[in-house]
């Protein structure tokens, strides 16, 4: 057991670090650009030097790198002050890219993947619907064949980045007379198509990271279908496998370091809160979870380093990380007592209102990319191999499935 890079890994790390250090964009380079433009500028620079989507084949804008090299690259990039690209390109590169790689024809791969890698084009994912969230395959937005086109009507929801995306991947119901999973087909769509209307959703945090996307007689050419008609669920699984890999919980905001620092500043019974045994016990429990996630990631890295695929232990990251951050934010606000209620980005408040921001932001993280309950089901069914819950929608046409409305 050791934490050292292998010889090859160390050489790769040095190469990555050297390139990053020589190519960090200056404030001048980025002057006058908004966040998306900054991200595009940096992504294009990486792509030109072969540092974009490095696991992808060279031919599609990648570098043919290994999984462990990808992790090393991410670690090194996180150490330098560069524009955040993952919040804009993460979905396209993390989910649409791998799906295209598996299912698109060679012509389309050559057409779309290099632009996706370089950030030139942004892709979004249009899966969830008002009637299909955790039960994604219950989606109803329908596509009807008309000549060489499909005519699409319905509504998607929770679409991150729809308003700045060029393309979207989506699953549509092409035959409601078939059983639920069988009547679905997978497409990609030009987000500027006539009949697409995008409305931002205001979250409880006050931010708008997601959208509703309405489809009214939107025309999608049959050539933009991925997989066969009726094979949509199968194709969607490619995307979803990658979603679980790409949505993590992060560890910023309310974490052991920040809440401990707060507990050193505020007092309980006239003494620093950090001396209170109840506070220490809570902090210790959170440390155990934080360290447990960190070393679970190390175990995954070790598997990657040996060329193995990561095991299912990785699926616990979001589940544990999100609920821990919520509880820590809540506890930090309690430590602030009466003033904990105050939240104002303009004022110089303790920890810049980070705990209050987390408190309002984390409920979304416990839902996005698989709710806590769905994650627990995944662990129970895929890892522990417990039987599925009996279902009311099996073996009957989708149109006859009870909907409660």
């Amino acid at each position, binding site marked *: 057991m*050791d934490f050292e890079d292998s010889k090859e890994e160390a050489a790769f790390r040095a190469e990555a670090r050297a390139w990053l250090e020589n190519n960090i964009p200056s404030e001048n380079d980025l002057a006058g650009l908004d966040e998306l433009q900054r991200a595009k500028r940096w992504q294009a620079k990486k792509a030109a030097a072969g540092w974009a989507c490095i696991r992808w084949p060279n031919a599609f804008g990648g570098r043919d790198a290994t999984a462990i090299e990808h992790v090393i690259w991410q670690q090194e990039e996180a150490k330098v002050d560069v524009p955040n690209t993952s919040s804009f390109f993460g979905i396209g590169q993390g989910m649409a890219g791998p799906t295209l790689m598996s299912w698109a024809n060679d012509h389309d791969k050559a057409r779309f993947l290099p632009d996706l890698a370089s950030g030139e084009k942004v892709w979004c994912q249009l899966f969830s619907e008002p009637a299909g969230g955790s039960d994604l395959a219950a989606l109803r937005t329908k596509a009807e064949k008309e000549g060489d086109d499909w005519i699409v009507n319905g509504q998607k929801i929770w679409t991150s980045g729809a308003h700045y995306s060029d393309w979207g991947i989506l699953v549509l119901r092409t035959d409601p007379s078939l059983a639920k999973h069988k009547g679905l087909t997978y497409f990609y769509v030009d987000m500027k198509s006539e009949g697409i209307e995008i409305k931002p959703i205001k979250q409880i945090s006050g931010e708008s990271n997601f959208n509703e996307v309405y489809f009214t007689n939107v025309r999608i050419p049959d050539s933009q279908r991925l997989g066969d008609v009726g094979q949509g669920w199968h194709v969607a699984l490619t995307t979803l496998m990658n979603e679980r890999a790409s949505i993590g919980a992060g560890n910023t905001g309310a974490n052991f370091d920040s809440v401990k620092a707060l507990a050193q500043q505020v007092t309980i019974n006239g003494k620093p809160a950090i001396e209170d045994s109840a506070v220490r016990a809570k902090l210790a429990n959170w440390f*155990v979870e934080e360290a447990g996630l960190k*070393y679970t990631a190390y175990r995954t890295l*070790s598997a990657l380093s040996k060329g193995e695929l990561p095991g299912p232990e990785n699926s616990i990251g979001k*589940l544990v990380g999100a609920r821990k951050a919520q509880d820590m934010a809540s506890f930090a606000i309690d430590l602030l007592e009466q003033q904990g209620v105050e939240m104002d980005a303009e004022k110089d408040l303790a920890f810049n209102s980070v705990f209050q921001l987390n408190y309002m932001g984390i409920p979304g993280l416990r839902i996005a990319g698989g709710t806590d309950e769905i994650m627990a089901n995944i*662990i129970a069914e895929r890892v522990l191999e417990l039987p599925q*819950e009996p279902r009311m929608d099996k073996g009957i046409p989708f149109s006859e499935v009870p909907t409660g409305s």
Partner: protein
Amino acid sequence: MNFEFNDEQHLIRDQARSFLRDNCPSSTVRGVLEGEELYSDALWKQICELGWTATVIPEEFGGLGLSYLELVVIAEEMGRACAPIPFGPSVYLATEAIMAAGTDAQKKKWLPQLAEGAAIGTLAYAEGPGETFSSALGTSAAKDTITGKKCAVANGNIASVVCVLAASDGAEGASMYLVDISETGVNAKTINTLDPSLSYADVSFNAANCELLGEQGEGWSLLNALLNRAAVLYAWEQLGGAETCLEMAKEYAMQRYAFGRPIGSFQAIKHKLAEMYVKNTLARSNAYFGAWALNSDADELALAAATARVGSCQAYYYASKENIQTHGGMGYTWEFDCQFFYRRSKALAVLIGSERQWQEKLISASDLVAV
């Protein structure tokens, strides 16, 4: 990055697991739990022959001279089997104490015996209900003899050698002393406990001969150093127990039908088992870090030990109680094995300081090490 055991260590785990499956079935645990025998002597002799008690003892003292990474995989299997033998206190506490602080003569006298299992050891520090304080020890040493009473000493009635924390002989603070239990003036009285598959005694010393172990006045710091090491080893043993609970609960949930379906198909059960899996996985990852820190004598040992200990205490408690719950009424019967692990989880949870004490140590350690 190589945060994983090597092939030989995996092999030792596989061998230990299959050996204990064959030689420590639940009837062995039940035999000690229900019977008069203080521990399974037959199993003890077998594992000593396999050299498990000798794992980390240097070859010059009759040991195998292997690393702690080999010992932790054995510890996990001990926990998995709920083995009713005096392994932990003898190997994780007494052997460690003598290796860490013993004189050459003390090592020569005791380590070969501990290695081959001819001698069983233990460590005694608690004297009554609640936390032990170095300044309030009722046991004291004078003129190479020791007097006082230690309570609920694991292996107290079967050990040949006891490391005893006592007020120093003519110096400030506490010191550690080595007592050969065959000396006159030592009296061990077996006590009834929550976990009769292990053996405990109250041990009293009445001017019994003793030898200083380590430096005069350094008993408290030696104790804490030993507990940090033992915390990692016990964390693996506790983790093993927690894993058995998850396996038992899973197996039962697949077989048991209610409302016309396996109870494992109900989300109430699935989510309970998923939570066990989460706690066990986090505990395992922290135990890995503990093993690394112990094996490399890292500065992070105190923090890593506390983290592993708290994680494993919580995982084992949760898994053992929810295993009974998953089994329903049958899980509460004497006939079922769920009780073994529920008992053992609490016995191990207080053996080297409670979860609360280790939470406290964790935060103190986090002040010293860059996290």
